[in-house]
């Protein structure tokens, strides 16, 4: 198959990403990202309507940037991949409308991509990529899943969170500690200064025997600790906050590490891919690397810039689908589009 130039557009939540990927030599030519985090901060969380309003202002400038950086012309693009879901309906619709119109006008096919497929394939963008088959741990603000990946489009769900996503638990706990929004990364930073075992927190479902997770109780446990410490009108001092952050992070990391490695062993595989925003967490990486090495398991992470949402992983997923012979936009009137805000990854077919 000749090299194909695939444009990728991501707009599922609060980041607009655009990228240009060349299949064949498998090269990411350029990628650009706009994060809305600062805009949503004042609201204490992502406001879906504001997210949609911002995406539609960003797509064209980001596309221009990517074309300029890659030195390629729009007319060279062979296919347009975009995130069809899951995510915020209005936000997804902006990327879909722009991508479908662009492709229709250029006369090239579109490739509607599953957002999580983009994440779990994102380590393939690094210099030392994993090879199929592997187990993927998807950990972000919206998802916590373990998947068995045997090839592009072959994803088997092994376990997932029954309530909060890991990143969501980070953000909610950070809010309890007064770290603002989104406080996950700030909490992780604070935890570095905390002492181990200064506070005891549960390890939810650690020994449940399956590969599912539950994190909402952990957040409640933190709330109980904070209430106990502040019941006389006292405020938490820096030491206490750091210790709680440490206890929280240690609890989450221990559960994630144990279940991820168990998933690899039970699948009789040797490779673990960690993707999603929480995959950037340093303590998670430290613990995983250490314990995986003992079990002769190799762990692969996307480059840090591709841990969060981005257009590169969407362009990549689209290119791999194209290579795998996916008929672009099958069985629909050309140009018709529909987003899929809720879309289980395991529903994907090759």
């Amino acid at each position: 198959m000749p090299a194909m130039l695939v444009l990728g557009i991501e707009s599922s939540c609060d980041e607009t990403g655009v990228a240009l990927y060349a299949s064949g030599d498998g090269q990411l030519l350029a990628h650009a990202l706009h994060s809305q985090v600062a805009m949503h901060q004042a609201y204490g969380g992502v406001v879906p309507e504001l997210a949609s309003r911002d995406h539609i202002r960003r797509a064209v400038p980001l596309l221009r940037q990517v074309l300029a950086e890659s030195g390629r012309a729009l007319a060279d693009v062979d296919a347009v991949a975009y995130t069809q879901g899951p995510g915020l309906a209005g936000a997804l619709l902006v990327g879909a409308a722009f991508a479908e119109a662009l492709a229709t006008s250029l006369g090239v096919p579109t490739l509607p991509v599953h957002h999580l497929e983009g994440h779990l394939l994102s380590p393939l963008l690094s210099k030392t990529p994993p090879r199929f088959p592997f187990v993927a741990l998807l950990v972000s603000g919206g998802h916590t899943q373990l998947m068995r990946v045997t090839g592009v489009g072959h994803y088997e769900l092994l376990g997932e969170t029954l309530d909060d996503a890991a990143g969501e638990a980070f953000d909610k706990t950070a809010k309890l500690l007064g770290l603002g929004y989104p406080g996950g990364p700030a909490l992780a930073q604070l935890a570095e200064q905390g002492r181990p075992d200064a506070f005891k927190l549960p390890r939810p479902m650690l020994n449940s025997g399956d590969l599912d997770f539950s994190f909402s109780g952990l957040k409640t446990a933190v709330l109980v600790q904070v209430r106990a410490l502040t019941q006389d009108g006292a405020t938490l001092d820096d030491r206490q906050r750091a210790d709680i952050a440490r206890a929280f992070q240690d609890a989450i990391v221990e559960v994630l590490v144990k279940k991820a490695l168990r998933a690899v062993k039970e699948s009789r595989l040797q490779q673990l891919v960690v993707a999603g925003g929480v995959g950037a967490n340093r303590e998670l990486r430290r613990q995983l690397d250490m314990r995986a090495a003992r079990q002769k398991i190799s762990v692969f992470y996307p480059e840090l810039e591709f841990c969060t949402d981005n257009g590169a992983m969407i362009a990549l997923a689209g290119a791999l689908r194209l290579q795998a012979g996916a008929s672009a936009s099958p069985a629909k009137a050309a140009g018709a589009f529909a987003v899929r805000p809720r879309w289980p990854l395991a529903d994907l077919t090759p």
Partner: protein
Amino acid sequence: MPAINLLAIETSTDAGSIALWRDGEVLLRDCPRGVSHSETLLPLIRSTLAEAGLGFADLSGIAFGAGPGSFTGLRVACGVAQGLAFAHDTPLLPVGTLEAMALAAGGGRVLVALDARMGEVYLGSFEVSSDAVVALGPVGVHPPGAVPLPASGGWLACGNGLAAYPALRERLAPAVDAWLPELMPTADAAARLAAPRLARGERVDPADAVPVYVRDKVAQTVAERLAQGGKA
């Protein structure tokens, strides 16, 4: 002088349509009802262009109803228009939805009231002459019983806001001579409004083409919630 082929997209409401303006001749096509615009818009544009024997690169301009209207509908029109315009560097022209409705309503002074849901209407007032529409003030969003009243009489009032809110009709009655409550935004009016602007060389960069929502306060900041005694 080469032929002018202008495509107009209007999906501000459930009644979406597209129009192809060809040197004054307008071809209007309605989006099928009961199906979301995302499913029908581009296929309809494709078939209409094919019918006219035109390709996307043959378009000399693309206009879209920029609002106000359904937030999602506005973004579908805007996103599609951006994509089509960017692909072949085609001039892009956002058109006021109420302004185009005023043109469609006829001549003279026109009040346009489009149902904004949530117990409100979008209201605009315009002076219409042949193919020119002048806005007599900014478009606003109001509760039907509190819309600003025109100072004089003799107005033509149009739009589904009149049908949705009897209180609005009651309030406007002293100033209005004629009613067109069934008039909805259509792409042919958007095309007629955009065509002379295109001929004058007007265009908007796709990066700057954004919907005009009018209803701009959609969420409260943490500070605002706290000030009202709410939670962070």
